[in-house]
Protein backbone atom coordinates (compact mmCIF):
# COMPACT_ATOMS: atom_id res chain seq x y z
CA UNK A 1 0.00 0.00 0.00
CA UNK A 2 1.37 3.41 -0.99
CA UNK A 3 2.01 6.16 1.56
CA UNK A 4 -0.32 8.60 -0.22
CA UNK A 5 -3.11 6.02 -0.23
CA UNK A 6 -2.70 5.51 3.53
CA UNK A 7 -2.71 9.26 4.11
CA UNK A 8 -5.93 9.73 2.15
CA UNK A 9 -7.63 6.83 3.92
CA UNK A 10 -6.46 8.18 7.31
CA UNK A 11 -7.91 11.61 6.46
CA UNK A 12 -11.31 10.02 5.76
CA UNK A 13 -11.16 8.15 9.07
CA UNK A 14 -10.34 11.18 11.20
CA UNK A 15 -12.73 13.57 9.44
CA UNK A 16 -15.79 12.80 11.65
CA UNK A 17 -13.74 13.57 14.78
CA UNK A 18 -12.23 16.86 13.55
CA UNK A 19 -13.46 20.05 15.25
CA UNK A 20 -11.41 22.50 13.15
CA UNK A 21 -12.46 21.96 9.54
CA UNK A 22 -10.28 24.85 8.33
CA UNK A 23 -7.21 23.02 9.63
CA UNK A 24 -8.54 19.80 8.08
CA UNK A 25 -8.76 21.58 4.72
CA UNK A 26 -5.03 22.34 5.00
CA UNK A 27 -4.03 18.93 6.35
CA UNK A 28 -0.41 17.96 5.78
CA UNK A 29 2.10 15.51 7.24
CA UNK A 30 3.03 17.98 9.98
CA UNK A 31 -0.58 18.42 11.12
CA UNK A 32 -1.00 17.55 14.81
CA UNK A 33 -4.15 15.48 15.38
CA UNK A 34 -5.01 17.03 18.75
CA UNK A 35 -3.50 20.51 18.63
CA UNK A 36 -4.27 21.43 15.00
CA UNK A 37 -7.37 19.43 14.11
CA UNK A 38 -8.78 19.82 17.64
CA UNK A 39 -9.76 16.17 17.80
CA UNK A 40 -10.89 15.63 21.36
CA UNK A 41 -8.39 13.42 23.11
CA UNK A 42 -11.32 11.31 24.33
CA UNK A 43 -11.84 10.25 20.70
CA UNK A 44 -8.23 9.43 19.95
CA UNK A 45 -8.61 5.78 20.84
CA UNK A 46 -11.69 5.59 18.61
CA UNK A 47 -9.54 6.91 15.75
CA UNK A 48 -7.05 4.12 16.49
CA UNK A 49 -9.85 1.52 16.52
CA UNK A 50 -11.19 2.83 13.19
CA UNK A 51 -7.68 2.68 11.72
CA UNK A 52 -7.26 -0.92 12.89
CA UNK A 53 -10.53 -1.91 11.25
CA UNK A 54 -9.91 -0.01 8.01
CA UNK A 55 -6.40 -1.40 7.49
CA UNK A 56 -7.01 -4.78 9.15
CA UNK A 57 -4.09 -4.30 11.51
CA UNK A 58 -3.46 -4.19 15.24
CA UNK A 59 -1.69 -1.19 16.74
CA UNK A 60 -0.04 -1.87 20.09
CA UNK A 61 0.07 0.62 22.98
CA UNK A 62 3.65 1.61 22.23
CA UNK A 63 2.77 2.51 18.63
CA UNK A 64 -0.36 4.42 19.66
CA UNK A 65 1.90 6.68 21.72
CA UNK A 66 3.70 7.74 18.53
CA UNK A 67 0.57 8.83 16.64
CA UNK A 68 0.85 12.55 17.32
CA UNK A 69 0.99 14.01 13.79
CA UNK A 70 -0.34 12.80 10.44
CA UNK A 71 3.22 11.77 9.52
CA UNK A 72 3.62 9.78 12.76
CA UNK A 73 0.29 8.08 12.13
CA UNK A 74 1.05 7.22 8.49
CA UNK A 75 4.47 5.85 9.55
CA UNK A 76 2.82 3.72 12.24
CA UNK A 77 0.14 2.39 9.89
CA UNK A 78 2.70 1.70 7.17
CA UNK A 79 4.87 -0.24 9.58
CA UNK A 80 1.90 -2.31 10.79
CA UNK A 81 0.63 -2.98 7.25
CA UNK A 82 4.13 -4.04 6.16
CA UNK A 83 4.55 -6.27 9.21
CA UNK A 84 1.16 -7.87 8.54
CA UNK A 85 2.46 -8.76 5.06
Amino acid at each position, binding site marked *: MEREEIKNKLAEIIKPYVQDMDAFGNISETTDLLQDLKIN*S*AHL*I*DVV*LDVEEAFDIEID*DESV*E*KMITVKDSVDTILACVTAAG
Partner: protein
Amino acid sequence: MSLGNDVISIVHLVERTEDRKQRYFNKTYTENEIRIIKTLSKQHVEGFFWALKESAYKAYFRVIPKVIMSPKQFEVLTFDEKGATVKTPAGLMHSKVEFTEEYIHAVCSTRENGVNEIEYNVFQFKENFYQEVKTKIASYQNCGVDQVEISKDENNVPTLKLKNQQYLLSLSHDYNWGSYAYQKQSISV
Protein backbone atom coordinates in the same frame (compact mmCIF):
# COMPACT_ATOMS: atom_id res chain seq x y z
CA MET B 1 1.11 22.94 42.90
CA SER B 2 -0.38 22.02 39.55
CA LEU B 3 -3.96 21.74 38.35
CA GLY B 4 -6.02 20.54 35.44
CA ASN B 5 -9.61 20.35 34.30
CA ASP B 6 -11.58 18.70 31.50
CA VAL B 7 -15.13 18.94 30.23
CA ILE B 8 -16.87 16.35 28.05
CA SER B 9 -20.10 16.85 26.17
CA ILE B 10 -22.28 13.83 26.94
CA VAL B 11 -24.28 14.07 23.73
CA HIS B 12 -21.01 13.71 21.77
CA LEU B 13 -19.79 10.64 23.66
CA VAL B 14 -19.23 7.86 21.14
CA GLU B 15 -21.64 4.92 21.30
CA ARG B 16 -19.71 1.66 20.99
CA THR B 17 -20.77 -1.87 20.24
CA GLU B 18 -19.85 -4.48 22.88
CA ASP B 19 -16.95 -5.76 20.77
CA ARG B 20 -15.63 -2.27 20.16
CA LYS B 21 -16.13 -1.31 23.79
CA GLN B 22 -13.92 -4.24 24.81
CA ARG B 23 -11.17 -3.16 22.39
CA TYR B 24 -11.51 0.45 23.61
CA PHE B 25 -11.19 -0.67 27.22
CA ASN B 26 -8.10 -2.74 26.47
CA LYS B 27 -6.35 0.23 24.88
CA THR B 28 -7.47 2.82 27.42
CA TYR B 29 -7.64 1.23 30.86
CA THR B 30 -5.35 -0.77 33.10
CA GLU B 31 -6.59 -4.01 34.61
CA ASN B 32 -7.18 -2.19 37.91
CA GLU B 33 -9.31 0.48 36.19
CA ILE B 34 -11.39 -2.15 34.40
CA ARG B 35 -11.92 -3.81 37.78
CA ILE B 36 -13.16 -0.50 39.26
CA ILE B 37 -15.39 0.21 36.24
CA LYS B 38 -17.04 -3.20 36.55
CA THR B 39 -18.06 -2.39 40.14
CA LEU B 40 -19.78 0.84 39.05
CA SER B 41 -23.28 1.06 37.65
CA LYS B 42 -22.78 4.64 36.50
CA GLN B 43 -23.95 5.65 33.05
CA HIS B 44 -21.24 7.15 30.80
CA VAL B 45 -18.53 5.69 33.01
CA GLU B 46 -16.03 5.97 30.14
CA GLY B 47 -16.72 9.72 30.08
CA PHE B 48 -16.02 10.01 33.81
CA PHE B 49 -12.78 8.12 33.57
CA TRP B 50 -11.63 10.01 30.48
CA ALA B 51 -12.33 13.40 32.09
CA LEU B 52 -10.30 12.25 35.11
CA LYS B 53 -7.42 11.05 32.96
CA GLU B 54 -7.41 14.15 30.76
CA SER B 55 -7.53 16.61 33.65
CA ALA B 56 -4.71 14.68 35.32
CA TYR B 57 -2.77 14.81 32.05
CA LYS B 58 -3.06 18.60 31.99
CA ALA B 59 -1.82 18.86 35.57
CA TYR B 60 1.02 16.46 34.70
CA PHE B 61 1.97 18.40 31.57
CA ARG B 62 2.40 21.61 33.52
CA VAL B 63 5.00 19.81 35.67
CA ILE B 64 6.60 17.68 32.94
CA PRO B 65 5.92 19.18 29.49
CA LYS B 66 6.37 15.94 27.55
CA VAL B 67 3.55 14.65 25.36
CA ILE B 68 2.32 11.19 26.34
CA MET B 69 -0.33 9.55 24.16
CA SER B 70 -0.83 6.57 26.44
CA PRO B 71 -4.03 6.80 28.53
CA LYS B 72 -2.88 3.89 30.71
CA GLN B 73 -0.10 6.03 32.15
CA PHE B 74 -2.80 8.15 33.79
CA GLU B 75 -4.42 5.53 35.95
CA VAL B 76 -7.52 6.08 38.06
CA LEU B 77 -6.64 4.40 41.34
CA THR B 78 -9.76 5.23 43.34
CA PHE B 79 -13.17 6.56 42.36
CA ASP B 80 -16.21 7.30 44.52
CA GLU B 81 -18.79 10.00 45.13
CA LYS B 82 -16.27 12.14 47.05
CA GLY B 83 -13.66 12.16 44.32
CA ALA B 84 -10.88 10.22 42.70
CA THR B 85 -7.15 9.78 42.72
CA VAL B 86 -5.18 9.42 39.51
CA LYS B 87 -1.61 8.17 39.27
CA THR B 88 0.52 10.04 36.71
CA PRO B 89 4.22 10.21 35.80
CA ALA B 90 4.27 13.49 37.75
CA GLY B 91 2.75 11.99 40.89
CA LEU B 92 -0.70 11.52 42.34
CA MET B 93 -3.56 13.82 41.33
CA HIS B 94 -6.57 14.43 43.59
CA SER B 95 -9.73 14.98 41.60
CA LYS B 96 -13.37 15.87 41.77
CA VAL B 97 -15.95 15.02 39.12
CA GLU B 98 -19.27 16.73 38.56
CA PHE B 99 -21.91 15.96 35.97
CA THR B 100 -25.26 16.98 34.63
CA GLU B 101 -27.37 15.39 31.90
CA GLU B 102 -25.31 17.39 29.39
CA TYR B 103 -21.68 17.33 30.51
CA ILE B 104 -19.07 15.67 32.69
CA HIS B 105 -16.41 17.87 34.30
CA ALA B 106 -13.30 16.85 36.21
CA VAL B 107 -10.89 19.11 38.06
CA CYS B 108 -7.73 17.99 39.82
CA SER B 109 -4.81 19.18 41.90
CA THR B 110 -1.45 17.77 42.90
CA ARG B 111 -2.42 18.56 46.50
CA GLU B 112 -4.76 16.51 48.63
CA ASN B 113 -7.89 18.67 49.08
CA GLY B 114 -6.25 21.04 46.56
CA VAL B 115 -9.48 21.20 44.53
CA ASN B 116 -10.81 23.45 47.32
CA GLU B 117 -8.08 25.93 46.35
CA ILE B 118 -9.30 26.07 42.74
CA GLU B 119 -11.93 28.33 41.21
CA TYR B 120 -13.67 26.61 38.30
CA ASN B 121 -16.67 26.99 36.05
CA VAL B 122 -18.43 25.10 33.26
CA PHE B 123 -20.45 26.95 30.65
CA GLN B 124 -21.88 26.84 27.14
CA PHE B 125 -20.39 29.05 24.48
CA LYS B 126 -21.22 29.85 20.88
CA GLU B 127 -18.17 31.33 19.19
CA ASN B 128 -15.05 32.69 20.89
CA PHE B 129 -14.11 30.35 23.74
CA TYR B 130 -11.28 32.52 25.09
CA GLN B 131 -13.39 35.67 25.08
CA GLU B 132 -16.13 33.80 26.91
CA VAL B 133 -13.64 32.59 29.55
CA LYS B 134 -12.40 36.14 30.08
CA THR B 135 -15.94 37.49 30.33
CA LYS B 136 -16.94 34.82 32.86
CA ILE B 137 -13.87 35.41 35.04
CA ALA B 138 -14.29 39.19 34.87
CA SER B 139 -17.91 38.87 35.90
CA TYR B 140 -17.03 36.58 38.81
CA GLN B 141 -14.14 38.78 39.92
CA ASN B 142 -16.21 41.92 39.49
CA CYS B 143 -13.65 43.59 37.25
CA GLY B 144 -13.35 44.70 33.64
CA VAL B 145 -12.63 42.19 30.88
CA ASP B 146 -9.52 44.25 30.09
CA GLN B 147 -8.13 43.22 33.49
CA VAL B 148 -8.26 39.55 32.52
CA GLU B 149 -5.47 38.24 30.31
CA ILE B 150 -4.82 34.68 29.15
CA SER B 151 -1.40 33.79 27.83
CA LYS B 152 0.25 30.54 26.84
CA ASP B 153 3.86 29.51 27.24
CA GLU B 154 5.99 27.74 24.62
CA ASN B 155 4.33 24.43 25.58
CA ASN B 156 0.83 25.83 25.10
CA VAL B 157 0.22 25.81 28.88
CA PRO B 158 -2.10 28.67 29.85
CA THR B 159 -1.65 31.24 32.59
CA LEU B 160 -4.18 33.75 33.84
CA LYS B 161 -3.25 37.35 34.59
CA LEU B 162 -5.94 38.93 36.70
CA LYS B 163 -5.68 42.46 38.07
CA ASN B 164 -1.91 42.29 37.49
CA GLN B 165 -1.46 39.02 39.40
CA GLN B 166 -0.70 35.66 37.79
CA TYR B 167 -2.57 32.41 38.43
CA LEU B 168 -2.19 28.82 37.22
CA LEU B 169 -4.95 28.21 34.67
CA SER B 170 -6.41 25.17 32.93
CA LEU B 171 -8.80 25.40 29.99
CA SER B 172 -11.00 22.84 28.30
CA HIS B 173 -13.70 22.74 25.68
CA ASP B 174 -15.66 20.04 23.92
CA TYR B 175 -18.05 21.10 21.18
CA ASN B 176 -20.20 23.86 22.76
CA TRP B 177 -19.16 23.16 26.35
CA GLY B 178 -16.26 25.06 27.88
CA SER B 179 -14.62 25.13 31.28
CA TYR B 180 -11.82 26.81 33.14
CA ALA B 181 -10.05 26.26 36.45
CA TYR B 182 -7.57 28.54 38.14
CA GLN B 183 -5.72 28.52 41.40
CA LYS B 184 -7.27 30.92 43.92
CA GLN B 185 -3.84 31.87 45.22
CA SER B 186 -1.75 33.96 42.82
CA ILE B 187 1.73 32.77 41.89
CA SER B 188 3.26 36.26 41.69
CA VAL B 189 2.49 39.91 42.34
